[in-house]
């Protein structure tokens, strides 16, 4: 018996996905803003969104490119301070309507671009080195950023980052809606790049750098590009974070923050965007849910980490990635089959 597999044609797939995503964004925003969840839950949701952007962006460098940056929090810090200083300078909270929206968009893009610029500066020399050396250089970069943010005002005699006392009174521009829009755009852009010749080049480098170069892949270019892309979105996440908290401390962006993000990526399964998203949600929500057991939660967290690695070293999702269309196709084909049988 010949079995015909029903496939959804490309434009229709995109249309279905766009409609579903728009429904998700506007529907859930209406629900949240209409008081469907408490203010506390809304805050947790925003932090989850920021962490998703961080994890998904680090996954580009770690999961897709196969490098191990240990300074992702450094890029986040650069974005956070850029966004914070910009929002204060334009006095975003005083602006109304279109001006307010434009200021937010400008802050997000600017934060991303400045972080990306640092990504290029670090990436060009660091990516010449292989393996663990990149990890160590990015680690050093993250620590230097922290020290610079703490001390630069004293050294140069201006008031920019406000040193250890922190950058305060940043306009609180971050809302559930704009976090969600950023999450969707981040995932979408990364997905679209990865499913193109550029994405294939990045994956080829991860799989075998020498073979990739022998096939005509510009390895250095793509390594720097993936690294910069990763830094860009970390900067965007930083800006959202600044607008969420309203104040920034350099100590927030230490080595431990970088590790926290890395853990999300590895636990979810390197190279799986779905994995990064799920583990960012779990690892943000879990400690919140465990607040009642404050004393034990960090111990439980570290135990989970070790146990998952010992029993499932490739992470929870492996390299599996989620495809809405694939699921729809499966449902369609199932429907057909049962009709035939019936």
């Amino acid at each position: 018996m010949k079995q015909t597999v029903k496939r959804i044609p490309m434009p229709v797939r995109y249309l279905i996905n766009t409609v579903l995503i728009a429904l998700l964004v506007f529907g859930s925003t209406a629900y949240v803003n209409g008081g469907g969840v408490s203010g506390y839950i809304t805050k947790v949701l925003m932090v989850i969104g920021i962490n998703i952007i961080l994890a998904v962006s680090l996954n580009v460098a770690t999961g897709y490119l196969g490098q191990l940056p240990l300074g992702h929090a450094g890029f986040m810090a650069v974005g956070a301070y850029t966004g914070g200083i910009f929002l204060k300078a334009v006095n975003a909270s005083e602006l109304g309507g279109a001006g307010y929206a434009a200021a937010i968009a400008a802050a997000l893009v600017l934060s991303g671009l400045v972080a990306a610029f640092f990504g290029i500066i670090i990436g060009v020399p660091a990516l010449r080195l292989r393996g663990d050396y990149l990890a160590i250089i990015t680690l050093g970069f993250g620590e230097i950023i922290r020290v610079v943010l703490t001390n630069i005002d004293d050294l140069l005699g201006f008031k920019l980052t406000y040193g250890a006392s922190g950058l305060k009174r940043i306009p609180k521009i971050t809302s559930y809606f704009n976090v969600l829009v950023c999450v969707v755009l981040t995932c979408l852009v990364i997905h679209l790049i990865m499913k193109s010749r550029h994405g294939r080049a990045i994956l080829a480098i991860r799989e075998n750098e020498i073979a990739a170069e022998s096939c005509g892949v510009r390895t250095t270019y793509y390594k720097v590009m993936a690294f910069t892309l990763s830094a860009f979105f970390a900067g965007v996440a930083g800006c959202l974070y600044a607008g969420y908290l309203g104040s920034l401390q350099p100590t927030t962006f230490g080595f431990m923050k970088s590790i926290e993000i890395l853990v999300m990526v590895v636990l979810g399964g390197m190279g799986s965007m779905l994995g990064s998203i799920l583990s960012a949600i779990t690892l943000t929500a879990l400690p919140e849910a465990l607040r009642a057991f404050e004393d034990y939660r960090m111990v439980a967290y570290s135990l989970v980490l070790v146990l998952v690695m010992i029993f499932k070293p490739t992470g929870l999702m492996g390299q599996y990635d989620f495809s809405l269309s694939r699921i729809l196709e499966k449902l369609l084909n199932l429907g057909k089959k049962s009709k035939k049988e019936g």
Partner: protein
Amino acid sequence: MAFFSTLFSQIINGLQSGSIYALVALGYSMVYGIIMLLNFAHGDIIMVGAYVVWMSMTSFGLHPLPSILLAVVVSTLLGVVIEKVAYAPLRSSPRLSLLITAIGISFLLENGFQLIFGAGAKVVPPLIEGPTFKIAGASVSTPALVTLAVTVVIMIGLTLLVQKTKLGRAMRAVSEDMGAAQLMGVNINTTISFTFALGSALAAVASALYLSSYAQASPTMGSMLGLKAFVAAVLGGIGSLPGAMLGGFVIGLAEALVSAVGLSVWKDGVVFAILIVVLLVRPSGLLGKPMKEKV
């Protein structure tokens, strides 16, 4: 004159903290040389050692020396147990998984100790007492002299151990080529355990030397100390024992000199900047062997 005596005492300080970094860096370097793992939990072994010293002196009223010995024993056992329980099952897994496991163990130790003993620092009674000497206008404490002396003795001992004994030869063989060493009859598991034991014992000694001048134990004391010792290991050339020693002293002296010119808040930044510059110029570190991939 005042400047030179300040400089001189900062150099002594630098050598003292450099010794501690060097001893810890050796542990990072040996483990990396053998299983290519950045053992993030190594810094926390120092912390565990410090708590053992604190407990045995304050709760059991032991003399400093047996306390230190106890710390060495506990740390050594802990290092071996961590390797057997958490790292050995992952020997054939992706290296990143192993790294995350090490980070997990590090978190576990820090948070576990915080849960048991609280987040506050514990004051440890003086370990080494003695007069402060005046040398060339600078004051040099007894703990500083003891630290230097102990470090030099340990380094000579370690070099002999690695060069002359059968276990040392096995260690070198395994780090050169694990498969070949196994075929030549080297027991891989014993060698790896021995490496962890040795590294952890050195960390415990470093911990005691640290306590002799800073006299405080806290759950997170190992993380920054460990990170800098790790930087020292990389700077000197990871996998190279003389390199780890050299790297430790370079980091210690650099910090002291940055403080001497009044920029002590920048010292962490300077340490990492030195690391980045050295890696860009000499990717294999000061004394490391360059590695080339076979095509």
